């Protein structure tokens, strides 16, 4: 892939800032918004996939072992997954830099 939009000069933008390739929203790191992060306790997880279904950003993916993890590039830390988890296997941890 060529330059992302973050790197383009004003001369390199399409006329009217038109987007000519689909899927550009993938580049946007919405994970930057997060102040709390989901951490899964796989001992409590029953692999039901409720968190995967409820995640409003489709930021949760299934691992090879069948557990579920959040892609922190996109996860905004909304906490819906932790709220919906039937076995309370997800805890929201403060992000500390």
């Amino acid at each position: 892939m060529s330059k992302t939009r973050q790197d383009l000069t004003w001369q390199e933008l399409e006329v009217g800032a038109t987007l000519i390739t689909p899927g550009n929203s993938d580049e946007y790191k919405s994970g930057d918004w997060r102040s709390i992060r989901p951490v899964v306790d796989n001992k409590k997880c029953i692999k039901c996939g409720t968190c995967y279904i409820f995640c409003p950003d489709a930021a949760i993916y299934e691992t090879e072992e069948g557990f579920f993890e959040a892609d922190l590039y996109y996860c905004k830390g909304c906490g819906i997954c932790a709220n919906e988890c039937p076995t309370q296997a997800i805890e929201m941890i403060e992000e500390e830099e």
Partner: protein
Amino acid sequence: MGKRIGLEVSLSAAEAVKMANVDCIAAYPITPQTHIVEHLSELVNNGELDAEFIPVESEHSAMSVSAGVSAVGARAFTCTSSQGLSLMNEIVHIVASMRLPVVMILANRSMSGPISIWNDHTDVMSIRDCGWIQVFANNGQEVFDNVLFAYRVAESQNVMLPLIINIDGFILTHVIEPVEFWEKEQVEQYLPNFSPIHTLDPDKPVTMGGVGMPYVFSEAKVAQDEPLKQSKSVIITAWKELGDIVGRYYKPIETYRIEDAETLFVTQGSFGETVSLVVDALRDEGKSVGLVMDRLWRPFPFDEFREATSQAKNLIVIDRAISYGGQGGPLAIDIRSTLYKGENQPNITNFICGLAGRDVTIDDFKNIYHKAIEKVKKHPREEDFEYYGVRGK
């Protein structure tokens, strides 16, 4: 040479829009724009103009429809005044950022309140910074010619920006003037078909008007402002070639009897013709007076303005709009900035007059001239402008 016809300026403007062979007219009626759109609806209805006429439910929709029309690669025209412009304001800015060459005639009318249907420039000045190319017209012929000029410039590959033609409400829109029409061949010679750069096409999908995150927004704005600034050369060429075809030559800054003139009036719009008569009268009295008319408002023709006023000692800037709490009218403010730190900077006096269609006669302008000469002796400050003819002031 085309036929010379005595016709209301609004109707001849509509005839020019017909000659530009627009594909869609989306407009909502508002005084004093009404006759232009009414006549276009007649032309579409009786089959003289093959275009969609969309009687939208508001000006917001009028500009939204025009944006959509332009985005699919068709030629869009709309027309409004005053509050109508306010209602479409949101989309006016968006059309410019999306680089859609919509053309709009703005029949200039006061912004209420108090409620007014009459002419001044407070409407266009409220959207001065909207990113459109903006021109003013002195008379009906200029309106006609500038409609064809507008599409030629707006749709130029290096420009692709919307354009507003300002015409003074009632003072121009509702008067009958002799207007020379163009021959069909002249239009074909002057105005090529619209070739958009990007279009909304299902076979080649793009996103127009998408989100601009902070990391790209400033770049997008420069990519909008640069072509606006650079459009000046396209504008000058388009006016030159218009002259070569129909014999009427227009320039960004028009001058009248400025040779050796100590004092220059500066006007926009239909005031220009009135003041040209004032200049003649004052010259007959032995006064050293001339006139500079600003036809191109955005992009502002800095070099041309500086050149036209380089020999003048005094400028009398006539504004038909207010910048509340500011240094007078918008035109004067820009001119002070343009000439700031220049060599031999002239004394600049500023008069705000003709609000809401109040007549400003030849005698009024003579009076303004004498007032300006008196003011200059007292070294006025920048903010010492005058509301001319206001009772109690």
